[in-house]
């Protein structure tokens, strides 16, 4: 069903919160209150917000460094993000790590990324497969840059997810730059959605500066995944308006390009849309903006108030000494998985066109593939 008016205003709220939080972080950076580098998603807010908004509360996500918006939509507070960047004791990682490198397995169902690009993709495939095995119809979503799509982990992860039909949605943010590297030195592709063709899964390209377009594509992919039809790759075309990080003036980016894309600002566009479609009044808009200012003031004050961690904490937590036990939560009768399963240890080759001699070319992709296992397996569609 289409989004309601309040939902439209929520999308706007999240995008603005994303942007204004990053504006505030930039000020903190100039005040040397931020430890290490500061990354910006200026101009890419529609992607983080639109895609994360397509998830249910029970669904899983793993953010990349520019997915501040997704972290907010999925329930982290601006103070959490600010404290991460300021390496405070109160941060979700207690100062052990920074930026978007944090998560929450218990409530928000968020997995922490690491710096190495691509690694999250097989991990989130595993999250999705575990949910399926536990009988939970939960979907896993993560993001990757067009640059990160050159990594081996991207390939192994997405290929594995496709074969296993894992409930995974992968948003490829093509912001046209990987640090200083333009797309044509990253891949010989016009549309990075074509990466999907190597795996026999759908790959779609959307306007990443149109929050509704992103939401709709993500929503469809999430539903597809929940149905059990496997992963989708969504390329969201956009542009990185700041440097790779604060230290980078990005002189390698031509001015005309910056200008053209500033004109396509996703928040401006959505504001015009809301006004044109009469989905809000000036008053409502100002209320949202006022609310954001109010909230951010509080949040940042709380973040600044948090002390730095005590030095000795550095020595703690390398191992889990029964400290934090994650238990498997089943949503299916355990009898369904109780051995013996009597799976037949042989391929259903007679039902494997993929295994027929190759000149009879009616081989099929995994999607309609009965696979091996119990005699009565899923019907071909």
């Amino acid at each position, binding site marked *: 069903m289409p989004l309601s008016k309040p939902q439209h205003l929520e999308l706007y709220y999240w995008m603005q919160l994303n942007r204004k939080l990053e504006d505030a972080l930039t000020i903190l950076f100039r005040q040397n209150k931020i430890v290490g580098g500061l990354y910006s998603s200026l101009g890419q807010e529609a992607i983080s917000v639109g895609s994360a908004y397509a998830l249910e509360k029970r669904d899983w996500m793993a953010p990349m460094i520019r997915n501040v918006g997704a972290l907010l939509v999925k329930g982290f507070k601006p103070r959490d993000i600010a404290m991460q960047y300021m390496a405070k004791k109160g941060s*979700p*990682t207690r100062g*052990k*790590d920074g930026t978007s*490198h*944090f*998560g929450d*397995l218990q409530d928000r169902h968020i*997995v*922490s990324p*690491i*710096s*190495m690009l691509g*690694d999250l993709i*097989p*991990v989130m*495939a*595993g*999250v999705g*497969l*575990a*949910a399926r*095995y*536990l009988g939970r119809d939960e979907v*896993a979503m993560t993001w990757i840059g067009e640059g990160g799509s050159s990594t*081996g*982990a991207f390939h*192994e*992860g997405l*290929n*594995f997810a496709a*074969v*296993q039909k894992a409930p995974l949605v992968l948003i490829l943010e093509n912001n046209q730059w990987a640090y200083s590297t333009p797309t044509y030195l990253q891949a010989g592709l016009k549309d990075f959605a074509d990466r999907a063709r190597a795996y026999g899964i759908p790959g779609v390209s959307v306007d990443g500066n149109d929050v509704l377009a992103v939401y709709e594509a993500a929503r469809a992919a999430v539903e597809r995944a929940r149905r059990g039809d496997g992963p989708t790759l969504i390329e969201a075309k956009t542009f990185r308006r700041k440097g790779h990080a604060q230290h980078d003036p990005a002189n390698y980016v031509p001015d005309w390009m910056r200008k053209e894309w500033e004109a396509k600002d996703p928040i401006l566009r959505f504001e015009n849309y809301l006004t044109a479609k009469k989905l809000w009044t000036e008053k409502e808009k100002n209320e949202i903006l006022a609310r954001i200012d109010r909230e951010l003031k509080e949040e940042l004050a709380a973040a600044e108030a948090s002390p730095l961690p005590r030095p000795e904490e550095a020595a703690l*937590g*390398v*191992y*889990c*000494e*029964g*400290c*934090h*036990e*994650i*238990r*498997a*939560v089943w949503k299916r009768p355990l009898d369904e*998985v109780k*051995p*013996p*399963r*009597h*799976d*037949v*240890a*042989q*391929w259903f080759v007679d039902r494997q066109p993929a295994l027929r001699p190759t000149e009879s070319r009616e081989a099929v992709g995994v999607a309609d593939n009965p*696979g*091996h*296992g*119990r005699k009565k397996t899923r019907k071909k569609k």
Partner: protein
Amino acid sequence: MAQQTFLQAIGRGLWEEMERDPAVVMLGEDIGVYGGAFKVTDGFLPHFGRERVIDTPISETAIIGAAVGMSYLGLRPVAELQFIDFIACCFNQITNFVAKSHYRWGAPVPMVIRGPSGGGVHGGPFHSQNPEMYFVHTPGLKVVYPSTPYDAKGLIKASIRDNNPVLFFEHKFLYRRIKEELPEDDYIVPLGKAAVRREGRHLTLVSYAAMVHTCLEAAEQLEKEDGISCEVVDLRTLLPLDRETLIASLKKTNKMLVVHEDTRTGGIAGEIAAIVMEEAFEELDGPLLRVTSLDTPVPYSPPLEEFFLPNVEKVAAAARHLAKY
């Protein structure tokens, strides 16, 4: 109960854990229908079903990555590497994602990574490696490398129940060469505890995995031929190391010879030397010495590999030298 080989003991341990806990799942290349390159998981697929015994593409990074994700939902995945040498292909996932997860954000990764390791079977440079030290040097992991069927079964079970990522190395030379009667009951062998395989008075031989048997043979010989009484310590777990047992034995014999099949430079003998210096320097009546493989890749041709590996003669010679010291 009948005698069980090292390989069967590992298989039984995995089987019993999967029977006990539906959260235990497996993934790896050719582990299901085929039962694994060495048949460790033979018969698992029909019994436990394809949801729990997952045949993967040739994608070590995906195997480890997926296992991490599964562990985040409370499953206890056991990932098989067809040969441990291929662990190099998922090194990043293991050392950066798995090992640092709990420290960074408190997310435990209760998973086991296991695979056939070690040489002596003429497997050549890529099917004979001992990569354990790469992981002993990586905080956040635990590293296990058993030498007997009893330990192998008890340690694989303990590894699966541990809340931390455990690398479980299986020495393929032992797979079918050693047998043992195993108790019926559901026993485990705790991680982090070494075992004294043989009591002795004159010097301590420290080793693990296949080389433990080489040390025991050398000890026999030394006792008979030279009247040198060797204590033999089997480390069993390499990370965390059982310092207590090491130091206790040194205090008794005052001489220590470390034997490992891993290459020499950067092998665990060095770490043990440093620990001994720190904790028991005064106890040393002679230098801690080491007998190891050469600092080369593992050569393929039998005469070359024999020259490369430690053996009873090399251990006995070094022990005699040290005993005289």
